[in-house]
């Protein structure tokens, strides 16, 4: 099923929103308005958007430490995301989680996660629940190339394939696990090669081509919904910024020509030029979209700043369910 014009425009809007959200998060963190660590998703927008465009609200995803893009792509509210970054009560976690623990269970976003690989078992559990419920919903697990070196990756692929769970493993291979290149961490740098060892379909795709990501993800999602079990989709991509920042962005350690080469493969510019070539997007459409994104982000910051800080007397709230 090929996306129609309004779906394509929405994919572009979300990709721009994700990029601008994280560029803003970097500025806000540098200004000291938000706290903790920020892991920008800039450069990888096509993956979250391309995959989530194939999902319904009742489908579930798990995310990573670099999770803002997955939240936005799955339909989370940027005002509540921003309020969470600001540590306010109207944040998704009432200010208890911050950037690395944003979740919105109401849209099936089961959480970002500060531990590499930790989302895979949780996604497998969600997939088990969906299988037992007998509906055609699926779970998607986003993770990076770094997670492939974790035991949880292998345990999750094995049991999911063994039980034919309705699950799609989406590896965002951004070429670096934290600050170390994939070739320094893995003998086999094509993550998709692991699929065969677990008896599942594996497919590698250009992670900077949102339409290709969407097409491959759609096939994997259809297999999962049709009872054919999990797939491993490897999306080759690149993060434009650092792995993580706290007070200030850390110095760049990657080769300048490598960064420049990947920026030439900008996933947003690629979709823009494709849509323009097909006559589906004009320059004024694009300008209007950019203006709207900036307006939405200003409103999100205003919402966050207007939200009170949590009251320390509520520190024990949410510890245990009734």
């Amino acid at each position, binding site marked *: 099923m090929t996306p129609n014009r309004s779906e394509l425009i929405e994919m572009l809007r979300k990709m721009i929103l994700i990029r601008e959200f994280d560029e803003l998060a970097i500025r806000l963190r540098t200004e000291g308005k938000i706290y903790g660590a920020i892991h920008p998703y800039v450069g990888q927008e096509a993956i979250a958007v391309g995959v989530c465009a194939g999902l319904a609200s009742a489908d579930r995803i798990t995310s990573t430490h670099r999770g803002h893009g997955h939240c936005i792509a799955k339909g989370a509210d940027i005002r509540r995301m921003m309020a969470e970054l600001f540590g306010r009560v109207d944040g998704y976690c009432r200010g*208890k989680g911050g950037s690395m623990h944003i979740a919105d269970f*109401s849209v099936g976003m089961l959480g970002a996660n500060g531990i590499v690989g930790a989302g895979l078992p949780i996604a497998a559990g969600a997939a*088990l629940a969906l299988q037992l419920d007998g509906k055609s919903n699926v779970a998607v697990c986003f993770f990076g190339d770094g997670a492939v070196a974790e035991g949880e990756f292998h345990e999750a692929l094995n049991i999911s394939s063994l039980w034919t769970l309705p699950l799609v493993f989406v590896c965002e291979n951004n070429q670096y696990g934290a600050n170390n290149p994939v070739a320094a961490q893995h003998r086999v740098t094509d993550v998709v090669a692991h699929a065969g060892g677990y008896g599942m379909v594996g497919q590698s795709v250009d992670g900077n081509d949102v339409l290709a990501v969407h097409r491959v993800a759609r096939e994997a999602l259809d297999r999962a919904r049709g009872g054919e079990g999990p797939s491993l989709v490897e999306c080759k991509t690149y993060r434009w910024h650092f792995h993580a920042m706290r007070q200030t962005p850390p110095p760049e350690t990657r080769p300048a020509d490598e960064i420049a080469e990947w920026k030439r493969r900008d996933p947003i510019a690629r979709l823009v030029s494709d849509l323009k070539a097909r006559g589906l997007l004009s320059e004024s459409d694009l300008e209007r979209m950019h203006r709207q994104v900036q307006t939405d982000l200003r409103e999100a910051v205003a919402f966050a700043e207007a939200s009170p800080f949590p009251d320390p007397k509520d520190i024990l709230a949410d510890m245990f*369910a009734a």
Partner: protein
Amino acid sequence: MREISFAQALDEAVAEEMRRDDRVIMLGTDFTGDPLKEFGPARVRYTPISESVLTGMALGAGACGFRPIVNWRMVTFSFVAMDQIVNQASKIRYMFGGQADFPVTYRCTTGGGSGSAAQHSQSPYSMWMHLAGLKIILPATPADAKGLLKSAIRDNNPVVSFECSRLNAVVGAVPEGDHVVPLGVARVARAGTDVTVVGLAYYLQEALKTADEMARDGISVEVIDPRTLVPLDVETIRASVRKTGRLVVVDEAPPTCSAASEIAALIAEDAATFGALRAPIQRVCAVAVPVPYSPPLENAALPDRARIAAAIRRVLDAAPVPA
């Protein structure tokens, strides 16, 4: 009242809860009895030996409407799943601001005394107590094994069920029907006036036997079973200590940062209870070594009735704590 073993009581609890609620599912590499026959392979899931994924899958399935019971078998194996226990299960509800519930029960056996040596003789209750976010049950009788495990399965939070191996064959009265014991309520297992002994799991049974022996010498021992370590019913213990003025805590874990340490601290830092103390608090714990294999060494490592009795005599003989 009918009598069944601790192990049978645990099996009954699980089977009854499986019958009561079809959202209860089981994950593990092995199960006692034949639950597959009654409940089928969709709900009784024999798994690969993959503790991390099982521990985490239960959270994912729990957040999506099921009530998984994960059987780690021995607590030893749970350590393979440390990330999912420490970073996920104990924190996932709070760090997401209470958006979802995670009604998961993690079961495992604990304890030494069976010649199983260092890795398979552990009682790491306090490691999990320390995390804040996991409830913990520690039954010491067949009735509590059944009643507490049923409460754990019905609870909407991750609950760890520590099931002491040495209690498996212990037989005791268990009420018929839907016998449920609430979490967070200690039990005065034997009333007494001279000294309070808090016994955990197998050592509740040993403390009761010691109390019987000492009664012949005219010593009146009150024995308390906390039954759940999180939440801990500290008020029942404090009330007992305010009455007796003396406290001995018996725990087969090593003493450092143990449940026994926590109970001692909760008694000592409460002004009214501290003021009633007539002797220093005593902990009777394992020697701080990995539990050794050879019987004379293992016996030396673990508490026994002689050490419990000696601690009771120490607190009885102690000069009163100055005001």
